[in-house]
């Protein structure tokens, strides 16, 4: 039994919980179920089939999807690597340089882009690229993604770093480690769960970005979200549902991975306090 004053004893608790879960997941379930629909319709069930998954890979639009998927995955991979490196350096630099003037201002500056409406960032990026004469295409998407992924990668890394007591670094220095050795043998290994979590977050954010990508992509270059959007404009076909389901699976896989990495990190930091 839950405690006497537990929220679970409030009247209507179960009903509200159920409603919330329904609203959150029913649309996703519908898409997933209908991706296995044998019929052409997106509303009528015509029996189970893998027809639309086949269509994604071998149908008329498959070439477009494959190119878009390649762009999406390669951009997400590179953008996540670069932004994670920058975010790690920023986190260490800001967290381990003692008290400096404008410290909280700097923290705000790094995470502010998350709060800026994405459409504003998109317009600003496009205007900037045009102003400097950057030709829109694959590279412009990549650069934009690197930039907006930095704050997302930064958050879990900085959070992890806050949890690592400075005494580990003092202990390492006390045991004759130079700055390089300290970073390599102590700080980076302890920071790894945060870095991986930051990487995965950046990867996912890049993978499903639509607004900024749509602004800065050149003609003919598509990522999966823009390609899907393009297809939907001419009517929703079940192959879009199959493709969406596939993307959902990849996201779930990565988020699960990030969760377990976080748990490993938590287990490590449990010993932070000693006996």
């Amino acid at each position, binding site marked *: 039994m839950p405690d006497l004053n537990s929220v679970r004893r409030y009247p209507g608790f179960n009903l509200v919980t159920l409603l919330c879960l329904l609203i959150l997941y029913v649309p996703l379930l519908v898409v997933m179920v209908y991706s296995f629909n044998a019929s052409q319709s997106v509303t009528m069930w015509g029996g189970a089939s893998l027809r639309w998954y086949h269509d994604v890979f071998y149908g008329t639009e498959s070439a477009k999807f494959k190119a878009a998927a390649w762009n999406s995955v390669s951009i997400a991979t590179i953008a996540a690597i670069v932004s994670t490196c920058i975010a790690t350096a920023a986190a260490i630099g800001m967290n381990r340089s003692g008290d400096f003037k404008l410290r909280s201002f700097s923290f705000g500056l790094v995470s502010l882009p998350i709060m800026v409406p994405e459409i504003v960032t998109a317009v600003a990026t496009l205007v900037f690229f045009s102003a400097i004469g950057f030709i829109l295409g694959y590279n412009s998407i990549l650069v934009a993604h690197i930039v907006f992924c930095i704050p997302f990668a930064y958050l879990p890394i900085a959070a992890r770093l806050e949890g690592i007591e400075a005494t*580990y670094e*003092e202990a390492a220095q*006390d045991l*004759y*480690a130079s700055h390089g050795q300290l970073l390599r043998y102590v700080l980076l290994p*302890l920071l790894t769960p945060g870095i991986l979590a930051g990487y995965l977050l950046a990867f996912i954010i890049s993978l499903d970005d639509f607004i900024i990508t749509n602004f800065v992509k050149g003609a003919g270059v598509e990522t999966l979200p823009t390609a899907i959007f393009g297809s939907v404009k001419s009517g929703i076909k079940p192959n879009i549902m199959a493709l969406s389901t596939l993307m959902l699976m990849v996201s779930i896989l990565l988020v699960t991975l990030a969760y377990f990495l976080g748990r490993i990190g938590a287990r490590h930091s449990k*010993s932070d306090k000693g006996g």
Partner: protein
Amino acid sequence: MSGPQENCPAVEIRNVTKQFGSFIALSDVSVSIRDKEFFTLLGPSGCGKTTLLRLIAGFEDVTGGEVLLYGEDIARLPPNRRPVNTVFQHYALFPHMTVRENIGFGLKMRGITGQDAENRVNRMLDLVHLEALAERRPNQLSGGQQQRSALARAIAPGPKVLLLDEPLSALDLKLRQAMRLELKRLQQETGITFVFVTHDQEEALAMSDRIAVMSEGIVQQTGTARDIYDRPVNRFVANFIGETNLLDVEIDRRDGSVDCRLANGEIVEVESVPAGIGSTARAQLLIRPERIELLPPQAGSMRGRIIEAVYLGTDMQYLVLLRGDIRITARSQNSDAAKPQFSTGDEVAVLLGDGAARLLLH
């Protein structure tokens, strides 16, 4: 002992001052720590003892003064270039390394690898009895085992001086007492100079060759356990180390002896008088509770009445009310069934043995 280090102090702190902003953590501190000594910095929290330790380790810069290690000024060296190692309060064992890797870390950073390093790590594991747990991670160890790993890690690179920052404070009482002996044994076996920081006076008295009592950024007294307990130089030291009765007295100096007049007019004799006390002056009398003997009332002695009697296991503690509303605490060991025992309300004679009372300047 040999070589040029023979007469050189292991650590010499010369007129060191440390400020954090406007807060003065250490003010003109001078301490000299001898080679192969178990030296303790003792004081309440915030007295500057940990700051002093961190200055020796190199985690903090001195604001002024010199820090000498075997005659060499190390005040400007970074911590990784000082031949001293630290045992941290919460051990700070690297959680991503095994016990063996932790102990070998300092050697690895110094470029000592291969068989040499392995032998040395094995010797350390043997020294702290952790051979069986060498491949464990710190979070799989008990508090005491983590403590011993931290010790082994700090000793492994062969530091000239080992700094210990309240290393026993995180352990429970039984383990703490066992570790005291263990630490003392380690210090004697390795012959390394230990600088030990604690706020626990019992710990300090039990282990140290010499103790520096600190408060408010100043070293109040340096000396052996006996020095600071029996001959405290001021009120702070007297109060901080052990229990103490401090009574206001007026001094009356006659040829040969010195009489101290309590507020109620009773006279107590003391043997020695600190320099600087004139023929008549106000001072304080320091009497340790265990040096006061209580007997059934008898003629010619100071009288008192028990107003509180507390049974403490090994001891009885009495609060005695003297004439003139003076309260003193007395302690007697429950060692002998024939010893008189008193209860609240009993009249007693209060006897001070030779050398029981000591004068302190105001």
